[in-house]
């Protein structure tokens, strides 16, 4: 490890209602791979966005190459030598690899672009990095892994001194990860400073020199990787005080019938051989880190995305779910993590959204029985205590928590027996949160069954009767609430197999 190239000191950033970063520190040296770790929502990406000028900081200093800096936008940061390799790649699929690398700074011979020279330069660059990619290939034809290599090459061709990898391995295969690590080691040799954001404990141990851990927007500490164990890091990540009392034992009768059984569900890379059972009256928590494949599992189960194989049994009977219509017919309702895009029609009223999935029951001949519709909508506005002036209010005018209640109402009106809650409290304030918890408990008490996908550990521990843990598209753990702890959930969630 060489001298310090980048220091972020006491970085503080607030958004309305959220203290996103609370005096966070980060120090990166030349020739170092520095891991940045933390649970979902710990503030890692916010910190990187502050660094590259996407957000402006409220307090603190950034020192880069001995000078205090503040970048106005990512392009300025890039010009200074700080580059992010994004998890979501910004590629121009119709252009070639070389054309992508040199976009905006094409090499010219006179008025014409010299593609030949760009191909040669790209080849040299790849050679230097030991990457085997044909610069004349169309970007869209490469695998995600190779695209990522191109992104790295592009970063280096910008004379980068600090490269930030934002969960680079999420979409890569085993062999591609090995190749990536080779490149990263190479870059370390060349005295670049590297920030490596990842959830994968094994990778951290293999590739990084130091680890900085964040939790709930705060700085927890920095460890030297070699001198610390996996448990040390996990303890720093989860060492949060849980204010709400976690559930200690399952509320489900041991002989409760299995209402939903999923066997060997497969749908792409994110859902591999997932099997589980859901009992009547149970809240089954789905835990895991970002990109573990939980939402994909739910969507494949619900028929929102095509599945490759797998059997689904509802009440012991095998069912064929090809699309959401089939799922709803079998009494399954899905509350998406992205309400605005997949849950509600924001330009329509509370009443219209409430009956969206069950309009057939609110007809009077060929006409919609608006009175009956308003009545049922009102009933659920009251029982869920949705805050809205009337059921004719457009949903766009409601707060996040109340919008979520409208989505819940939609499935309750449909009388679904199996409800999939995907991040039910994301973006919802504390008060509304506990109301939704309360509601879920009531629902299971009435005999409904819930699959709850959540990235919040405290939510998982507070609500679930049983917990399924996923990592990289596979089920990596299943435990009853009585044996679940933050530590063993996090272990399973970072388990690579």
């Amino acid at each position, binding site marked *: 490890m060489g001298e310090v190239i980048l220091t972020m000191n006491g970085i503080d950033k607030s958004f309305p209602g959220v203290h996103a970063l609370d005096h966070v520190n980060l120090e990166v040296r030349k020739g170092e791979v520095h891991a940045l770790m933390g649970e979902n929502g710990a503030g890692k990406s916010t910190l990187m966005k502050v660094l590259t000028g996407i957000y402006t900081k409220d307090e603190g200093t950034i020192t880069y190459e001995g000078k205090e800096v503040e970048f106005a936008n990512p392009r300025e940061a890039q010009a200074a030598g700080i580059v992010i390799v994004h998890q979501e790649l910004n590629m121009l699929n119709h252009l070639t690899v070389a054309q992508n690398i040199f976009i905006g700074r094409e090499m010219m011979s006179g008025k014409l672009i010299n593609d030949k020279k760009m191909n040669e330069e790209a080849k040299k660059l790849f050679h230097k990095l030991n990457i085997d990619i044909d610069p004349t290939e169309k970007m869209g034809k490469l695998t995600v892994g190779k695209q990522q290599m191109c992104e790295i090459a592009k970063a280096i061709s910008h004379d980068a001194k600090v490269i930030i990898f934002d969960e680079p391995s999420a979409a890569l295969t085993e062999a591609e990860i090995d190749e990536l690590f080779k490149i990263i080691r190479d870059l370390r040799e060349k005295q670049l400073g590297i920030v490596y954001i990842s959830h994968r404990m094994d990778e951290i141990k293999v590739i990084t020199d130091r680890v900085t851990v964040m939790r709930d927007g705060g700085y927890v500490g920095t460890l030297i990787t070699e001198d610390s164990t996996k448990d040390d890091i996990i303890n720093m990540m989860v060492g949060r005080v849980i204010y709400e009392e976690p559930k200690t034992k399952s509320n489900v009768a041991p002989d409760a019938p299995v209402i939903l059984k999923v066997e060997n569900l497969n749908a792409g890379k994110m859902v591999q051989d997932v099997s589980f059972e859901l009992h009547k009256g149970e809240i089954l928590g789905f835990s895991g880190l970002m990109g573990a494949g939980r939402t994909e599992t739910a969507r494949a189960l*619900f028929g*929102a995305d095509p599945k490759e194989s797998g059997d689904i049994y509802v009440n012991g009977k095998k069912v064929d779910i090809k*699309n*959401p*219509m089939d*799922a*709803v*017919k079998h009494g399954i309702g*899905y509350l*998406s993590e992205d309400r605005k*895009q*997949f*849950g*509600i*029609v*924001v*330009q*329509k009223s509370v009443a*219209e959204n409430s009956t*969206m*999935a069950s*309009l*057939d029951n609110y*007809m009077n001949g*060929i*006409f*919609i029985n*608006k009175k009956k519709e308003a009545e049922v909508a009102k009933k659920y506005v009251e029982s869920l205590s949705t805050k809205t002036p009337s059921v004719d209010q457009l949903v*766009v005018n409601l707060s996040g928590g109340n919008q979520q209640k409208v989505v819940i109402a*939609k499935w309750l009106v*449909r009388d679904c027996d199996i409800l999939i809650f995907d991040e039910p409290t994301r973006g919802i304030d504390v008060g509304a949160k506990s109301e939704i918890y309360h509601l879920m408990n009531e629902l299971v008490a009435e005999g409904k069954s819930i699959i709850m996908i959540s990235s919040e550990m405290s939510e998982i521990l507070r609500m679930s009767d049983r917990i399924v843990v996923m990592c990289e598209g596979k089920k990596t753990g299943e435990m009853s609430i009585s044996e679940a702890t933050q530590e063993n959930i996090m272990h399973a969630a970072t388990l690579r197999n």
Partner: protein
Amino acid sequence: MEKIKNNALVKKVGFNRVVLFCVLILMYIVFAILSPTFLSYNRILSALNYAYFLGFLALGVTFVIATGGIDFSIGPVMFCAALISGSLLTKSGVPLAVCLIISILVGTVFGVINGYLVAYWNMPSFITSMASMMLAKGVGSAFTKTQSVSWPQSSQENGGFRVLVKVMTGSGTQIPTGLIFLLVVAVICAIILNKTKIGRYILCLGSNKEAVRLSGVNVKKWEMLAYVICGTLAGVASIVYVGAYTTVQPGLGDTFNNDAIAGCVMGGTSMAGGVASISGTVIGVMIIALLQEGILAMGFQKDWQYVITGLIVLAAVYADVRSRKRKN
């Protein structure tokens, strides 16, 4: 201003519709001042003749625009229907009632083609409907061997269908029954759009198709239905067109698409989908019809109408784009 906006009646009709209606009245007054002949009953009848068929076209395309799509085939489809059934009536001696049904069915068939290609094959609606516009033009003129077709006059045999458009009283004054026909169909459309499952799903999927799909709704079926309704109404439009204008020439009709779409977007139906107003469409169509009559009455070239309608479409869509941006 606020007071007017909060008035119960205004709220029910919609402030924009009230403004639009005032524009309509104002236009009439301005034309009447500029051109004294404008006040005559015949002028009004002439404007209404234009409004009938345009009204049916616009009512239909309102459903398609509500889904977030567009249909550029309605005008030629209307002509195609009138050519086919008119030729069957006058040349092949097919009974009138059958011909009227065929008119409507021709429209329906084009609606089914458009709807199927757009909803089930994910083809862009504008290019799909332009292709069927060409089909409609070609099929219509191939069917009549590029001859124009004249439908029978009211006095002649088989001219009875014209009661749908106008009725002569004993004293020789004309009663514009077409207006009643149009308004009755408009009310039915408004009911379908606002009170039935069809309209509910069409509006919702125009606003957020994925959310509706994830509610377990067969979105493809309902999206296709919007095009079928549109095509069917283009078929109906063909009947009132020949009722008012008698003769249909092959290879024409595409300018009426633009007039109908202009009527829709002016009436507050959003090109982005999800928001539609039948009453707005009717008033919008009346404005277009009055505009064309006014341009003729003042002795301007007819071409001014294309320019003005074009600018109206652009202004209305720009206003819609702006207001959406502001909301986000």
